[in-house]
């Protein structure tokens, strides 16, 4: 069983067979698991409210590569914005992946969040656990979901794709899938 994939990569012909049900299966398993990872992180912060990210954006981030950007959000209204957007973002990213809704949009922001976590946690820890960390793997998984349009497998995006709103707008189609 399977579908033959034929393409070119790095200037070479590539041909391999993929079993369709297993491809669909793993997209869903990974999407739901990573989705719950994010959803749990977001809901956990809401249930233990108030959430204060100042130790991260003001403390840990200072002196790191992304520090000049992140520390701009370490005080006042900008910090209040981060304190809401981190748990809200994690919750929405998680919901998007679990439900397969606006999967590419959710994956984009998931990868963005992981970029901050990866560099700031890695650099403050002196990369003591190596360069390949959970944050990097999470980032790559988000990129894979966005690339493959994982929300079309048992996800809300399969229904959204049939709606005229998305059918008639090529730009909106990049947000689902």
């Amino acid at each position, binding site marked *: *069983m*399977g*579908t033959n994939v034929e393409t070119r990569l790095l200037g070479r012909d590539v041909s391999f*067979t993929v*079993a*369709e*049900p*297993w491809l669909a*299966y793993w997209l869903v*398993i990974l999407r*739901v*698991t990573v*989705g*719950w990872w994010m959803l*749990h992180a977001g*809901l*956990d912060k809401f*249930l*233990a409210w108030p959430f204060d990210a100042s130790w991260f954006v003001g403390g840990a981030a200072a002196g790191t590569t992304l520090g000049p950007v992140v520390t701009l959000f370490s005080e006042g209204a900008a910090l209040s914005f981060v304190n809401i957007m981190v748990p809200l973002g994690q919750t929405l990213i998680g919901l998007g992946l*679990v439900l397969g809704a606006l999967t590419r949009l959710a994956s984009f922001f998931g990868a963005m969040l992981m970029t901050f976590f990866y560099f700031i946690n890695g650099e403050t820890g002196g990369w003591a656990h190596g360069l390949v960390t959970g944050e990097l793997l999470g980032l790559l998984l988000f990129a894979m979901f966005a690339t493959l349009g994982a929300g079309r497998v048992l996800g809300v995006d399969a229904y959204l794709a049939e709606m005229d709103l998305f059918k008639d707008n090529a730009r909106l189609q990049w947000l689902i899938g």
Partner: protein
Amino acid sequence: MSELNTADKIAAYGGGGLVVLGVFVIGLLEMFLGSTHPVSGEGQIEHEALIPLEVRSGIILLGLLIWAAYAVYKVVATTPATDAGRTV
């Protein structure tokens, strides 16, 4: 279009079902009915979980074992001479 056979289905639904049950379904239950964060960052138990963590991790382990058993089965059950043209 291809479909899963019986062994495939046992691995897919049995293994995957247990992993999703342990990670996601029980996690959701804990979030709303039990303890969202039963263990602190230092490993201290802070709240009693609705479903003991040993049971939850055991469910996930069982799912992983089913996947592993399926992987071994696929290798063992494949006859080199007749299944040389495998596609998976």
